[in-house]
């Protein structure tokens, strides 16, 4: 029994970049093809659990390097199967579905955009425009910590509310400007109140420059208020059907 790691799927005529570095002991990455679809595979360390930092990074690195040039469907980390199962259990029974999913992402790459408020300028903006927040802030500052507990909670709640209201406006603005340049958008749940936008965009390869320029313009418009991070091109992690 040989365990095989599967990173993702490509069409069988896809040429892999030469310098891929896999997560197995050999480091090699190759493909196993069946008719028109191929699995991107490598060996697996079998003496230890998968899930280390290096394993996760290798999974991402291999997929994104391929995604730079070709359509690739990521498997969910970590996907391991017996070597003979790659064709028998994975490729042969699901070929049609895989080809269909590959066709849907052909010529498209993912970009992920995150925006976060610059804390001080936005807190200042919120405080200065809200009298209740100003009064609470003064009271909290005068009271000893124990005595101000409930006032501090109330102050924080008001600030968080005000921030959430702002980000709804700002976040919508960002998304509306980028949506026309993407063929699909997947919005991720934002965990912290100071997150303005956290979304994945599926962008046509020939519109990447345009998309990038639009993000740059947005960055300039929000400079000093929002910090943006743009990651890509990536494999279409957020646009891959689960089953």
């Amino acid at each position: 029994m040989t365990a095989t790691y599967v990173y993702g799927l490509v069409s069988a005529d896809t040429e892999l970049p030469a310098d891929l570095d896999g997560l197995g002991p050999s480091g090699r990455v190759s493909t196993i093809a069946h008719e028109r679809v191929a699995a991107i595979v490598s060996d697996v360390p079998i003496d230890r659990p998968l899930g280390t930092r290096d394993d996760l990074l290798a999974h991402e690195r291999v997929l994104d390097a391929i995604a730079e040039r070709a359509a690739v469907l990521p498997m969910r980390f970590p996907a391991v199967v017996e070597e003979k199962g790659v064709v028998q259990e994975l490729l042969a029974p699901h070929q049609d579905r895989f080809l269909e999913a590959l066709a849907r992402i052909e010529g498209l790459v993912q970009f992920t955009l995150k925006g976060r408020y610059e804390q001080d300028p936005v807190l200042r903006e919120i405080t200065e425009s809200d009298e209740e927040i100003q009064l609470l802030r003064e009271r909290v500052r005068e009271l000893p910590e124990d005595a101000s507990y409930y006032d501090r909670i109330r102050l924080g709640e008001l600030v968080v509310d005000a921030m959430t209201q702002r980000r709804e406006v700002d976040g919508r603005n960002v998304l509306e400007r980028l949506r026309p340049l993407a063929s699909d958008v997947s919005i991720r749940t934002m965990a912290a109140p100071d997150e303005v936008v956290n979304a994945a965009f599926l962008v046509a390869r020939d519109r990447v420059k345009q998309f990038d320029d639009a993000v740059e313009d947005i960055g300039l418009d929000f400079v000093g208020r929002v910090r943006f991070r743009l990651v890509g091109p990536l494999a279409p992690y957020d646009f891959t059907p689960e089953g």
Partner: protein
Amino acid sequence: MTVATQGERGGAVERYTGGGPSGLAEVVELILDKGLVIDVFVRVSLVGIEILTIDARIVVASVDTFLRFAEATNRLDLYAHGGKDLPELAESMMKGGAKGKTSGAIEGAVEKVGEVLTNARRRRDDEDEDEPEEQPVRRRPRPRRREREEE
């Protein structure tokens, strides 16, 4: 992920390309819980990861969050009053966040591949004897909201 063109275009946006050393937290957010899942792989899916990523993602608007933002607002130097310094504030903000919760636990929760394959095979044998299939991972409802638009 590697920093690609940061600064090249005026620095309004930090840019990273895929494939390269980056923060673990970012890669976890990017890849975990995403991608194709096929029946054959469900049996070898490794226990624990999904639950951990969900825990890492949720930072509920709780009392703790309110107190952190109250503190940040309090320390804000509105009219040049002075106050405590920012590095201290940044540190307390970090402590409250989800950072660092994932790495060790992921490693701890995962079974060895060899064992998993053996178990999967054993499970398959069991199925042949008409025993009820054991659910390898109980899925929790996923809190991620998705909104899609076809052009």
